[in-house]
Structure formats: structure tokens, C-alpha cells
């Protein structure tokens, strides 16, 4: 180039680019994919070559580019002749690179077989390095151009119109039988050799161009697909954002490549608002004779030769296989690919694609462009999964949400369970105690004296504004606008389709402000649900919301001694008269400003204390210390679940699964009859939702006191259309109740509430049957007196 070797120009250009402050140059980086709106993925092998360094091995670049220039070069194609898979048969350019770049000789005697001039360079190079070229077999009747002349001058035997009939040797090439390309493979002569350098022409690497919709055109003269400049990948405004350059654009010799690449660079500069200057470097070029497409060698090869002529080396697909696919009717290139597995190996058809579809086109009797290519999908070559995962491993594999008391739980042996991204203590086993024993102990302690629950994860959403009451009446099935400041109300929230999606206690803070408690997992989605309705449907309602879930640490103080322990820490009046059931007030506990809610999920006298998160741990510590005289202990989510089930309270996600409506749970009491509308109301009036045959919630009591399996179905007589047993109900919650000393369960049962006392049969996984009686779902303290202390 410009009179100097290409390698010198490359070295100088890289040095120049490295010195430019506005250039980011990555020489160990592959463009892995091109996506919408100029988004490209780069795969950088940062430290593969420096094992043991501190640097990450791989890095994935996410690039938003104004313009992308793909200078991805071209890939040489094999020739399809019998025995082209014998070790020692290689691409002509590969043999040349081994010799020039690495000083490796593939064989002493190399036969070159080609349909184009470029392979002559391999012959000339090897010859000049002192290796033997027994013959160059040029399939073209008319032979090559200037390079052929040069080869002859070096004394190399050049045979035109000839090809390889078959390769001799099994584990290693020992020779080739040559034949007329125009014939059917009759051997004219055998030539002994150690290697075969083949070249079937060059295919531009069009993958990055094609990933995001760039189209290709068939270049008849060069027998390859190249980017169609009229149909590039386009951005949102219809603007082209990928430009192919050089060999990737189908440019041929060095001079052509340089001119084309320079034009591409200038076009990209212009498209991004720059004024390009400078001229393209000059590349020397010798006139080359035109390539002649050779898809099968010899052209009339019989079946025996065709079944040894490999197209896809990795997946063992031969010319005969693709022809069979065509005969079987796989006319679409995508179908033929999947039938034969052509191009489905790790190289994704980089070597086999064009040869394979040329054979297919021939078999179908149609031109190559009509057959088309298979789809080019990113990444260009496989990238490591670790580059995609990035830092997401070990401690930061995923975010773990922790409450202000998390450290205490961990230090006191909490057995955590995931609840969304939170980690909540399932229970706190002591010493040798197992999970079950710990849960039973925690329940007994709560029912008999005093226990604490970290309830900080519950969602807390502020709803405020002149229209807040109206909004709350739409969100919840029951009436919320009538709630008085200082009071709490349990509410149900349904989706527009009528299904129960969340529940919780709402506290009215003042005339304009409500605080909605949601389930732990529902905080973000319920907040999103509220904003969705406010922003998209009721945009003229004066309501603001704020998710304040994490502002507060919340502690459930439960048990007959709960009031006593809080009274030890406050001077405010929280007596039964001053703070009635479902009331709340602001008090100071252990010197911390707090809201205290007198609500109960466990069924005992209990309170929830909410304090700023930064004081949560201090509150917890103070309660643990003050509760010592009552034998205080923490309880986990499982004890909470069992105790609520003993009380017959539902749990979102157990009694509901996205198909359950409040009416199924006999919660008509929580559905306002006075309101004109609420989200889900109309859906619940539809025939299927109002169907009296919908399964309804009941309690289930096994006859022998055993625990029913979770999710078990109650069978009914007969079989359904699929030959399965008919069913009439299923278990939604099931536990061993330490309070009752037996298994308790809830379930949805056909006409359940009308069938009290009936016995249902539940087949178990081991083939047995468990019998359970339909009972009231409230197992413990039916009159609700315990919550009054």
C-alpha cells in the first residue's frame, strides 16, 4: 500500500489512532451483534492472553452508535470434491497464513486447487519459501491471469480445466487423483502430495450487516452475496446506520478494497455531521482473471463422489445430503438447513452456507438468489456467558433486600426464606432444633405470652389528595372513604378482571391521606397499579401516591403480653380504651416516634409499631430487652402463616392464584354493596364469575389428624374427557397446628359452605387416600375474643 507492505501501513495506522484522544481503539474486540437504533454489542477478550491478571477476562460493550462501519472481511469457501475432509485438505488462504504468519509448513508437497486467482498466491508463497507445489489445478478452462503467469515462471505446473476426482489417504493426505472439471471424475493421473490447498472463491462476511435487517444481493460475477447498498439496516427515522466496507462489501483486490473502505469511512463521517477529508491510500493490484463458480468438482460427479464431498465439516453434511433434502421436498433453505443440519454447527454455516445453498438451488433447478440464505443471527461467533453475566455473580448475583433488623436475624440463627427479593426469617431454630420444632415453639410463645415479627417488608403506600377517598373506593372492593382518621380497615384489591390481587390494612392518616399496607410481594406492583390508573385513566383526579415501604421499620408485637411490653417503653396511653381494635395513633416508644396500629393477624392481642427505618434496630432491641420478663422471642413467616390459618385468614398467593375472586373466599362482607363501582366489580358480575358452582373456601379437617398435602385435589365420581378423575376441590393452605395439635387446612370446594360435615377424599402422591371433613375455616377463637387481650 502506498508502495509499502500492508503490515507496515497497519502498524502505522494503529499507532496514529491510539494517539488520537477522540478515538477508542479496541484490538481484542469483536463486533458480536448489531441491533435496532445503532445498538451494537462488542465482545472484548480483555485478559485471555494474560492469565492471572486482575483484569476481567471478557467484557461486553454495549454501544450506541450514530453509524456503524462493518469492515469484517470475507471468508474463503471450500471446494466440494470427494475426500475434501481428509486431514491435510485446507483452505488455500489458511495454508498461506500458517506459512507467512506463523512459520508453519502444512506439507512438503501441496497441490493447489482453485476456481480463482487468489489461490495462486498460496502456490507462489510456498514455492518461494522452498516448498514443492506438484501442481495447480485450475478448474477454469481459460485459467488465471497475471498470477498464473508468475506461477508458471516459477516453474510450477498449472493445469487448467482440471479438478480433483478424489483425495487419496485416510488419516492424512497422500495424493490426489485429478480429472477434467467438465467430466464425471475419471482419474487422469494421480499426484502424490501431503496437502491440498483449495479455494472456491470468497464470501463477504455480511453477518453484522444482516443482523438488523440489512438485505443482500447476489453478485453474479463474483458468485457471492454482498450487502445491498439500497437496503441497509435502518433507524427510527428511516436512516441507514450500517455501512459495509472493503471485502465485507464485496470489493475484490487490494486497490478496490481501499477505495471502497475510504468511501465507507467518509460516508459514515458525513452521516454523523463531520466533514471528511483526505484521499484513500493506493493499493497495488495485478489484473486478475474472473472467478468461475464451481459448486461441485467435477461438475458431473456421480453419487459415490458426491457422498464423499463435504459441505459442512462440523455436522458431516455432504453434497448428497442436500440433494436428498431437495428430493424429499425441503425446498425452503430454512427447512433444508434443519433437515440436514447444514450450517447448524458452532461455525453457523460460515464455511458451508453458500456451497450448500448453491447445491440446493441446482437440485431445485432455480437460481441461487431465489433460494436465498438462511438467517444471520447474533452473536457473530459465540461469546462467553460470563461476559453477559458481567458482575452478577457471588455476593452480587442478584440484589437481596434486607430490613433494618436483618443483621439481628442473621446473628440469631434465622433460617431465611426468599419473599420476592427480600430475605425473611422463616423461623429461628435454637440449638439442635429443626424447623418444625422452632415453628411450633414460636407459635406457642405467641399464643401464650409475647413474640415479635419483623414486618418491615410489608408494602406501605401513601395516597393523598382531595380525591383520595374516591380513588380508594375504586381501588378497594370495600368502602374506604368512610374510614375515620385514626382508624384502620382491612381491604381487598382486585384487578380490572375481578380477580383478587392484594389485601392489607388501610390506615387513614388525615382527611386527605391514606396509608395502604400491601403484601410484601405486592408493594411495587400495587403502587404501579395505582399510578397506572391515575396517569392513564383518571388523570384529572387530584391524587398523589408515594411508595414509602422502606421509610419504616415495622415490628409486629403479638401475644397476651404485647400491650404490657409496649407500655414499659412508652408514656403514651395505649390501653384498650385509648387504642381500640383497628385503631392507630402516634406515640413515642423507647424514645422513638412511632405509629402504633392495633391490628391482629395472629389472632392474639397484638400491635404493629412503625418507626423510621434508621431506628428500627433500636426499637427491636428495646422490645427484646423489655420483653425478657415475658420470655419474648422472635417468630418467623411460617409461624405467622400457621397462626393466620388457625384463624381462617386468607393469604394472597395461597388462597389466591390469579383466578380467585373475593366471593370464592366468602368475603362478600368486604365487598361494598353501596358503591356504584370499584375495579373488578363489572367483571365479577359476569356469568362465569357469578356462577354458584365456583369452588368456595372452607376449612378441612383430616379424620385422623394428619396434615393434608399442599395443593391436593378432592376427587369426585367419574372421569373427565381426558380420562382423569373428576375433582371437586383443592387444598389451598395446609399446616400442622400446634395450637390444636392436629393438621388443619383450607381449600376451595364445590358448594363447600353448604356441605359442612361432609367427608372428601384426597388422593396422595404415594397412591393412598386421605379423608378430610368440611368444616368452618376458623379453627381457633371463632368469636375473636383473643385479639382483645
Amino acid at each position, binding site marked *: 500500500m502506498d508502495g509499502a507492505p500492508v503490515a507496515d501501513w497497519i502498524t502505522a495506522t494503529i499507532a496514529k489512532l491510539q494517539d488520537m*484522544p477522540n478515538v*477508542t481503539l479496541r484490538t481484542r474486540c469483536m463486533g458480536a451483534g448489531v441491533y435496532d437504533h445503532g445498538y451494537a454489542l462488542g465482545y472484548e477478550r480483555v485478559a485471555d492472553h494474560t492469565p492471572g*491478571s*486482575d*483484569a*476481567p477476562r471478557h*467484557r461486553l460493550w*454495549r454501544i*450506541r452508535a450514530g453509524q456503524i462501519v462493518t469492515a469484517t472481511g470475507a471468508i474463503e469457501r471450500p471446494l466440494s470434491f470427494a475426500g475434501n475432509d481428509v486431514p491435510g485438505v485446507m483452505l488455500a488462504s489458511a495454508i498461506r497464513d500458517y506459512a507467512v504468519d506463523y512459520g508453519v509448513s502444512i506439507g512438503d508437497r501441496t497441490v493447489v486447487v482453485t476456481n480463482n486467482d487468489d489461490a495462486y498466491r498460496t502456490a507462489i508463497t510456498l514455492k518461494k519459501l522452498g516448498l514443492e507445489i506438484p501442481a495447480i489445478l485450475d478448474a477454469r478452462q481459460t485459467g488465471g491471469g497475471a498470477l498464473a503467469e508468475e506461477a508458471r515462471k516459477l516453474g510450477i505446473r498449472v493445469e487448467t480445466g482440471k479438478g480433483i476426482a478424489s483425495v487419496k489417504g485416510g488419516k492424512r493426505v497422500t495424493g490426489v487423483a485429478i480429472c477434467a472439471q467438465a467430466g464425471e471424475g475419471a482419474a487422469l493421473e494421480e499426484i502424490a502430495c501431503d496437502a491440498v490447498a483449495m479455494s472456491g472463491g470468497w464470501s463477504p462476511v455480511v453477518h453484522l450487516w444482516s443482523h438488523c435487517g440489512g438485505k443482500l444481493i447476489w453478485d453474479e460475477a463474483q458468485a457471492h452475496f454482498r450487502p445491498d447498498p439500497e437496503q441497509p439496516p435502518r433507524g427510527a427515522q428511516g436512516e441507514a446506520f450500517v455501512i459495509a466496507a472493503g471485502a465485507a462489501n464485496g470489493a475484490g483486490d487490494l486497490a478496490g478494497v481501499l477505495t471502497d473502505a475510504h468511501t465507507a469511512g467518509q460516508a459514515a463521517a458525513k452521516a454523523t455531521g463531520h466533514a471528511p477529508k483526505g484521499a484513500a491510500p493506493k493499493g497495488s493490484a495485478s489484473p486478475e482473471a474472473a472467478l468461475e463458480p464451481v459448486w461441485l468438482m467435477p461438475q458431473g460427479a456421480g453419487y459415490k463422489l458426491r457422498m464423499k464431498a463435504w459441505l459442512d465439516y462440523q455436522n458431516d453434511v455432504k453434497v448428497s445430503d442436500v440433494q436428498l433434502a431437495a428430493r424429499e421436498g425441503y425446498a425452503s433453505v430454512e427447512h433444508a438447513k434443519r433437515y440436514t443440519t447444514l450450517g447448524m454447527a458452532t461455525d453457523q454455516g460460515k464455511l458451508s452456507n453458500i456451497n450448500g445453498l448453491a447445491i440446493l438451488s441446482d437440485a431445485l433447478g432455480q437460481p441461487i438468489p431465489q433460494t436465498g440464505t438462511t438467517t444471520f443471527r447474533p452473536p457473530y461467533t459465540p461469546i462467553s456467558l460470563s461476559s453477559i453475566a*458481567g*458482575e*452478577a455473580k457471588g*455476593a*452480587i448475583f*442478584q*440484589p*437481596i*433486600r*434486607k*430490613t*433494618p433488623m436483618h443483621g439481628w436475624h442473621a446473628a440469631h440463627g434465622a433460617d431465611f426464606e426468599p419473599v420476592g*427479593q*427480600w430475605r425473611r426469617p422463616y423461623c429461628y431454630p435454637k440449638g439442635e432444633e429443626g424447623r418444625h420444632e422452632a415453628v411450633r415453639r414460636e407459635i406457642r410463645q405467641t399464643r401464650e405470652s409475647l413474640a415479635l415479627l419483623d414486618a418491615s417488608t410489608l408494602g406501605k403506600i*401513601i395516597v*393523598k*389528595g*382531595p380525591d383520595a377517598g374516591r380513588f380508594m373506593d375504586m381501588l378497594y372492593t370495600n368502602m374506604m372513604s368512610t374510614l375515620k382518621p385514626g382508624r384502620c380497615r382491612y381491604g381487598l384489591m382486585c384487578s380490572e378482571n375481578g380477580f383478587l390481587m392484594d389485601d392489607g390494612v388501610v390506615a387513614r392518616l388525615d382527611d386527605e391521606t391514606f396509608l395502604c399496607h400491601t403484601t410484601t410481594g405486592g408493594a411495587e406492583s400495587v403502587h404501579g397499579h395505582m399510578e397506572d390508573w391515575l396517569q392513564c385513566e383518571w388523570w384529572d383526579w*387530584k391524587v*398523589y*401516591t*408515594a411508595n*414509602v*415501604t*422502606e*421509610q*419504616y421499620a415495622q415490628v409486629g408485637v403479638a401475644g397476651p403480653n404485647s400491650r404490657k411490653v409496649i407500655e414499659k417503653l412508652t408514656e403514651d396511653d395505649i390501653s384498650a380504651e385509648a387504642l381500640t381494635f383497628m385503631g392507630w395513633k402516634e406515640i413515642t416508644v423507647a*424514645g*422513638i*416516634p412511632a405509629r402504633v396500629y392495633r391490628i391482629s393477624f395472629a389472632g392474639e392481642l397484638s400491635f404493629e409499631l412503625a418507626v*423510621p*427505618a*434508621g*431506628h428500627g*434496630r*433500636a426499637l427491636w432491641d428495646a422490645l427484646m430487652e423489655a420483653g425478657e420478663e415475658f420470655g419474648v422471642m422472635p417468630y418467623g413467616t411460617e409461624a405467622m402463616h400457621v397462626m393466620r390459618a388457625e384463624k381462617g385468614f386468607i393469604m394472597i398467593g395461597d388462597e389466591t392464584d390469579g383466578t380467585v375472586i373475593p366471593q370464592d373466599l366468602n368475603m362478600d362482607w368486604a365487598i361494598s354493596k353501596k358503591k356504584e363501582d370499584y375495579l373488578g366489580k363489572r367483571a365479577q358480575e359476569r356469568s362465569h364469575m357469578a356462577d354458584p358452582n365456583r369452588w368456595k373456601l372452607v376449612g378441612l379437617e383430616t379424620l385422623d389428624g394428619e396434615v393434608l398435602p399442599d395443593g391436593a385435589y378432592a376427587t369426585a365420581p367419574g372421569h373427565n374427557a381426558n380420562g382423569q378423575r373428576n375433582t371437586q376441590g383443592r387444598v389451598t393452605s395446609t399446616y400442622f397446628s400446634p395450637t390444636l395439635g392436629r393438621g388443619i387446612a383450607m381449600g376451595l370446594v364445590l358448594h363447600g359452605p353448604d356441605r359442612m360435615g361432609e367427608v372428601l377424599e384426597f388422593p396422595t402422591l404415594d397412591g393412598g387416600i386421605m379423608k378430610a371433613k368440611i368444616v368452618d375455616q376458623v379453627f381457633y377463637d371463632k368469636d375473636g375474643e383473643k385479639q382483645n387481650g
Partner: protein
Amino acid sequence: MAEPVTALGGARFEGLATIEEAGPTGMITLRGDLSSKEVKDAVKKAVGLGIPAQRQALEGQGTAALWMSPDELLLMCPYDEVAGTIATLEEALEGQHFLAVNVSDARTFLRISGAGARETLAKLCPVDLSRDAFTPGMFRRTRMAQIPAAFWLDESGTFHLICFRSVADYAFNLLKTNALPGGEVGVYG
């Protein structure tokens, strides 16, 4: 009342960038009509600052006004002045439709400074953090790896980042991992 405890207890890491937890900071979510004179006056009274433009952060003496959305600001003030600041807002906005709520304890507040600060954040957030594109006074709500986060850049080149309190450990370890020596990218020169 004892001092509030932050999620990270003032943790600090020095690597390609310095990551440190700021102490307790007062934060107030203010929602209202940001174009109204009343809100403008109320913010002025409360934190001595104007209304930040879209994706802008305004800083005062121990205060800040951050643009969160077309109808939401995050106001900052000293932790123990939150109640007073909210009272000022409520008084100034009497009769208006607005929401001012204390979220000081719901957040973790981190500072990322030093030569590698831009790069550390750029590895984690889908934000163009080049010097030309992200300049002092800019504020961005975004995603930091797998969590929501928001940050602004001050004149001294320090980033101030807010995320939820529950993910403080994750956020800190995330920033720390991405600021480990050896992970230099060098893309911002």
C-alpha cells in the same frame, strides 16, 4: 432519641473510585404542579432553591432539589431538619394539591468520587457518562445493574447516588466490584 443508623454504617472503599456512604440525610418527596408559582415559592422557602429543570439537580448549602419526574421532586436537607422543612412546605402550600412526605430513611445515599468515578457508574448504568454528555448539575434516574438508582454530578466531579435502603449492601458491593483495580476500561481518557 439516639442517632439514626444508616444501612452501611458509613462504609467506604477506595479503588479506581472512592465509594463512601454519606451520613443520614434528610429527603422529602414533593409531588405537585412544578410549574406553579405556589410550588416554586414553597421550594424556595423550604430549601432555598428553584425548581430544577428536567434531569437537573440544584444544590444549595446542605440542601438539594432534584428532578424526579414531571410532577415530583426530591428535596434534600439536613436529617434533623426534615420535619421543619415539611412543615414549611405544608404551610406554603396550604390549600394546594400536593404531597410532601419524609423518605430520608427509605434511601441509601452514596458518594462516588475519584478518577474512575465516571467509568465505575458507566459500567453499571445505561447512561452516556462521557464528559461531554454528562456534565455537572445533571441528574439521572436510571438502573444500576439490577436496581433502580438516581445520581447527579457536582462541580468537583463527585457523583451523589441514591438507591433504596434495603439494597444498600448490593449497591455498595456492586460499585466496589466495578471499582476494583484491574478493571480499568480507559474509555473516558
